[in-house]
């Protein structure tokens, strides 16, 4: 089965439609969405309507939560103070335009979606606000996959797609002390685990303006990182026309955002 995994659409309908066309062309059997349907982009209601019309299983992203629970639902919602200032402007605009039924839909989205040995989350199994960066410590990355009870963990949130293979994990544990009720020596070994980041459909940050997503083949276990050109100028024009900050059009046209460089390079959620 060919599975298309999307994330971080961010109200960019033009990018979404182009990616859906690409998915058709690649003959995918199913689609799963990793959340962040709204925020930054000019068409939050339309994007939600389109995802709902296709019955795409979708998990809740950090923006989806924030638009329901209030800005910065988690204290680590933004990786830097600059990102937070810009996020505040996008949040206020989005909060004013989303329809009540859209807000209700975003509020009821699950945090995780499971299909066999595949687990789907927005940020990490800990929180939709936690960033699983590709350079994250290997043992912490392994813990996130294991805590999802999966062999393959799909995530988004960073807006930069990657596939990370974690092989031959092992930990030797020795337990002692008055209340050491478990085996005195344990050896944990793990088979191949993977984290697959789907990138971003509507707010890419890999250095080019093209939309990104991933196609995963459940039989071959091959992950194909897809990069799809679309007419980002249309979205940029709509951003300006609807009164969103022009910086969002500028960064969309470049596929890059300085403010998303984290003040804390590990950027692990403590929620």
């Amino acid at each position, binding site marked *: 089965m060919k599975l298309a995994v999307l994330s971080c659409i961010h109200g960019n309908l033009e990018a979404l439609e182009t990616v859906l066309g690409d998915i058709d062309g690649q003959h995918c059997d199913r689609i799963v969405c990793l959340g962040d349907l709204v925020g930054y982009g000019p068409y939050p209601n339309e994007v939600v309507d389109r995802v709902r019309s296709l019955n795409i299983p979708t998990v809740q992203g950090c923006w989806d939560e924030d638009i329901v629970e209030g800005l910065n639902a988690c204290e680590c919602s933004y990786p830097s103070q600059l990102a937070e200032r810009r996020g505040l402007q996008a949040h206020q605009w989005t909060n004013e335009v989303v329809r009540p039924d859209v807000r209700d839909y975003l509020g009821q989205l699950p945090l995780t979606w499971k299909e066999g040995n595949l687990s789907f989350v927005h940020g990490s199994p800990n929180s939709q606000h936690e960033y699983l960066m590709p350079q994250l410590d*290997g043992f912490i990355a392994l813990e996130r996959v294991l805590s999802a009870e999966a062999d393959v963990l799909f995530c988004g949130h960073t807006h930069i797609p990657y596939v990370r293979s974690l*092989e031959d994990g092992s930990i030797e544990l020795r337990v002692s002390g008055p209340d050491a009720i478990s085996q005195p020596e344990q050896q944990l070994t793990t088979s191949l685990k993977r984290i697959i980041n789907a990138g971003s459909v509507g707010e890419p940050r890999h250095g080019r303006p093209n939309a990104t997503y991933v196609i995963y083949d459940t039989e071959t276990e091959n992950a194909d990182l897809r990069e799809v050109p679309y007419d980002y100028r249309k979205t940029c024009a709509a951003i300006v026309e609807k009164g969103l900050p022009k910086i969002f059009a500028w960064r969309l046209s470049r596929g890059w955002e300085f403010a998303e460089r984290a003040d804390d390079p590990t950027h692990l959620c403590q929620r």
Partner: protein
Amino acid sequence: MIWTTTNHWAILSGIEGNLAAYEAVLKDIRRQRIPVDALYILGDVVGLHPDCEALVERLRSPKAGEPVPQICTGWWEEQYFNLHGVGGDPEAQALREAYGDDVLEKLWNNLSRESVEWLRSLDFGFLELDCLLIHGSTVSPSDELTPNTPPTVLLDRLLCAQANQLFCGRSGLAFECHLASGAIGSQVTTLDDHTTPVSQTLTPRKVIGVGSLSRHRDRATYTLYSPHTNRLQFRTVTPTRTPVARGFG
């Protein structure tokens, strides 16, 4: 040798208002051949015991010659904060689920507002040398690490805190989990790059449960630690039984 201002630590948790148990541990600490010069209390200084107010007063006023206790907040402190409207769970849901609704009034009458305010001034945890001393973990005071916690979770809590040793008290258990060795291979593929596979090995680290002063009625367990030698010792003392009848209500 690296010289620090303190050489011999006593680390305890879970007094839960049991003043007799705390006095018994202080007595045992005074008996140590190598003097204890740092006293860490990893939360749960208060609880359901009616002596909570007296215990707080004792902690705030150590006797001459006693190390001034360095105290962080724990699960029970969080419950008192919730009851007084300054916690993250104003409905005290976790407390009700664990102990029922009747406990709310008991706790309300157990501690003065001034003492609650003092508890609020306490730290969340301590980073000392390469050690994290905390009630649960950096995730939350409720995070309960035990000998049965998966090794990957123990390691995650250590790595996230950038500590080699994590002393915790949430479980009330006295144990040492030594993550002795480990390895993992990792490779990242992006749109533009295939990185060379990287092999990472584990620097030995430990999670230590420091025991509890009130988990068992007839014994209190705490931990002695020498940072210079890395020597760890679990101590068990028997508190003097005192009648516990008075309340504040």
